[in-house]
């Protein structure tokens, strides 16, 4: 035992790999392997009762060029982009306000983060509850005599958008807040002492220096939005289909596992591409680390 301990102490690498092994093996078996198998499936023949038959074919990927599916892809990208934009527009001022809130900072931050930590399903359902024909929004509008009959708020692109923004807004607020918080107040004062008015100070100093936070936040909103499944499912109905829903259909009623796998793979490729672009090109716009 002693001898083993001493040997281990001397071999740093072995210790390192020993620590990493259990988790890594689990991840290899239950993350990497499944994705690989799914990749293989995407290039195989469709089985009669679901599942796959052996045989190499790229037909599933070819099907994706059908306008129907391209439209789904387009809608997914469009909704994800719009969600990100809305989160920036709504989230930046919130982060700015919190960063300047003095001793209320932590309390406010907690208020922003709290909904995000609670169940996504529950929150999406809460929006459903709010937007349905007999929900609070319609009831209030009716009571105020602003409308005669309930508006169809649910099962619209707007509802999906609302659900996505509602779900991912904290992901934008937190990184932007982090980069604003690090801003040296002396920089703004220096700008002012050099003659810059408040608006100019914001545009020329605050905004450029909070760009890293914006980039990170955009990443954290755009990517999950791309893979959204629950939100379009509950809030969009059958009409607002995004890639996530498409994938689910193929493994459910559609019984087209290769196509579903292909769609899933395309989604994953999309996500990785976005991550790559953001991190490599975006990193050029970011200031380098000090020292």
């Amino acid at each position, binding site marked *: 035992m002693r001898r083993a301990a001493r040997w281990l102490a001397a071999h740093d690498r072995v210790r390192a790999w020993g620590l990493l092994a259990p988790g890594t093996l689990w991840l290899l078996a239950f993350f990497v392997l499944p994705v690989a198998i799914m990749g293989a499936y995407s290039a195989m023949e469709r089985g009669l009762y679901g599942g796959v038959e052996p045989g190499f074919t790229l037909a599933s990927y070819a099907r994706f060029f059908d306008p129907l599916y391209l439209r789904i892809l387009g809608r997914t990208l469009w909704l994800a982009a719009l969600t990100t934009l809305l989160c920036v527009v709504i989230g930046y001022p919130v982060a700015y306000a919190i960063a300047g809130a003095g001793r209320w900072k932590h309390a406010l931050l907690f208020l922003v983060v709290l909904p995000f930590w609670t169940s996504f399903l529950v929150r999406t359902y809460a929006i459903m509850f709010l937007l349905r024909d007999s929900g609070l929004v319609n009831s209030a509008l009716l009571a105020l005599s602003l409308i005669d009959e309930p508006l169809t708020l649910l099962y619209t692109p707007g509802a999906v958008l609302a659900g996505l923004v509602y779900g991912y807004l904290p992901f934008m607020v937190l990184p932007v807040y982090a980069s604003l918080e690090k801003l040296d107040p002396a920089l703004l004062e220096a700008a002012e*002492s050099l*003659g810059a008015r408040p608006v100019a100070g914001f545009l020329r100093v605050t905004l450029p220096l909070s760009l890293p936070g914006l980039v990170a936040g955009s990443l954290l909103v755009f990517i999950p939005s791309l893979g959204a499944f629950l939100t379009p499912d509950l809030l969009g109905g059958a009409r607002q289909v995004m890639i996530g829903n498409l994938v689910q259909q193929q493994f459910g009623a559609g019984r087209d596992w290769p196509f579903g796998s292909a769609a899933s793979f395309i989604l994953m490729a999309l996500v990785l591409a976005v991550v790559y672009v953001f991190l490599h090109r975006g990193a050029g716009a970011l200031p380098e680390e000090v020292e």
Partner: protein
Amino acid sequence: MSQGATLTPAVRFTRVCKRFGETVAVDGVSFDVAGGEFFSILGSSGCGKTTTLRMLAGFERPDAGEILLNGERIDELPPWERPLAMVFQSYALFPHLSVARNVAFGLERRKLPRAEIDARVRSALELVRLDPGVFGRRSPRQLSGGQRQRVALARALVLEPPVLLLDEPLGALDRKLRKEMQAELRALNRELGTTFVYVTHDQEEALAMSDRVAVMAEARIEQVGTPAEVYERPRTAFVAGFLGDANVFEADSGRTVVVRPERMRLLRPGSAVPDGLSSRQGEIRDLVYLGDREHAIVGVGPVDFRVALRDPDRFEGETWRRGDAVVVAWRPDDAHPLEGA
């Protein structure tokens, strides 16, 4: 103290007060700064000197009193409308802009032609002895502390402000660099004729660079005067002690006086005390070696005197040791009476 009744001071504070919650940061501070003067506000941390400077710059609003710039009230003006520029303690260089863009920042707002901005940036950098060709395109991160300090200076000076504010700009530099920069700042002040208002806690710095010094303590100004005035004729024990080593004690006349260590001499007991000198008897309690000089701590009754030993004392073969009985002597003229306590 105003320079002369006819000349409008460049800066005038009249009974300015500022409090933060319960704390009084600045309590009825009044002073004038003449045009072109190098004026230092000297004090330890927390005395209110930085708050005073920030009120001049416009980052804090006074609760009472007036601040005048060239005869006009500026307390209502926001910082960007005040015709002065500030060099910050942390330099506050914009990390996302190059050195040249940093220096050009204040100019760009004025909608000058590009060529002129570039020319003025170049000459500002040359003024602080940074080669524009080499440093212009660098990012602040790539500069040393001393270089950043110069860029901060250039950025403020390029605007040709009538008054330049400096908030302990040399604090982060090492001693040698600090002395170099002190000389350069002094030279710039003379060359450009710009009024400098300089805040520091280093009394050596204040004495070396200033035309006049205001000593601040606990939100009030204790004394304003030339370096010689505040050093040789301090008004209070605080000022005396802050400006340098000081021996504060009750003279035979009953008044409290201050005598600087370098104005005192040590004599062997029994040797004749030269005519006219005051003296006391005591015993050497410690000897402090400071490189360029040596101090003897002499216990005289309940008080400790600090005496600077001069070379003649040593050359003459007089080597002092701890425990030696000595006589401390000084010229009565060098005992400066303090006001107040």
